[in-house]
């Protein structure tokens, strides 16, 4: 199972996990990213590069499939305006081995952060907006998986 979705709509985490569990591997790991409503932040606006996003996320998924013995991978990334508390991203992996499921899940979210063409803009209650700056720490984490 290989599922890549780039969409504005919300997703059902329970249904996504159930699909991975049904593969019969015995181990499912997942990560859900949610808009953090702190510091007066009311929403994030996610911009992406439509001509590139699906293919690039697909390459990241293929990299995970090449590195770990996985029965299934699901990646869902939303774009558009997402209010505080809304889900942004889901990564789920299924494997016969818990280490493969857990490691590949961490790899996928690290790579999505620094290798997928999305940009976040913060909207605050007072009306101010700010583009989120990339963190060197995130780039270092993604690079940590190479080699």
């Amino acid at each position, binding site marked *: 199972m290989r599922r890549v979705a780039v969409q504005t709509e919300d997703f059902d985490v329970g249904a996504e996990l159930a699909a991975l569990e049904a593969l019969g591997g015995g181990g499912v790991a997942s990560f859900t990213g949610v808009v953090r409503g702190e510091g007066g932040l009311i929403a994030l606006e996610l911009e992406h590069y439509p001509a590139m996003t699906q293919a*690039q996320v697909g390459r990241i998924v293929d990299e995970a499939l090449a590195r770990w013995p996985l029965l299934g991978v699901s990646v869902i990334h939303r774009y558009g305006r997402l209010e505080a508390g809304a889900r942004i991203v889901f990564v789920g992996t299924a494997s016969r081995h818990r280490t493969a499921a857990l490691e590949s899940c961490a790899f996928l979210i690290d790579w999505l952060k620094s290798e997928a063409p999305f940009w976040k803009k913060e909207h605050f209650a007072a009306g101010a907006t700010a583009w989120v700056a990339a963190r060197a720490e995130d780039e270092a984490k993604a690079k940590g998986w190479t080699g």
Partner: protein
Amino acid sequence: MLKIVYFAWVREAIGRDEEQIERPGPGSTVADLIALLVARGGGYAEALADSSRLRAAVDQRFVPIDSPIGDAREIALFPPVTGG
């Protein structure tokens, strides 16, 4: 002609999300293209003058800024990505 697309604050500073420009000379790199755009001044200079803050893609593949344009059809200029 060559299509250029912009994202995030690069798009906002330039004031448009895409445009067609005269294809730069043979052997030109993305950095050469950026220099041509910076010379326009205004929002272009504001967005693109400091190339250390920029990332690029050639035909929907991330590339280093000093990569050749070759016979690419679409160049994208944007800040480091912040998805996930």
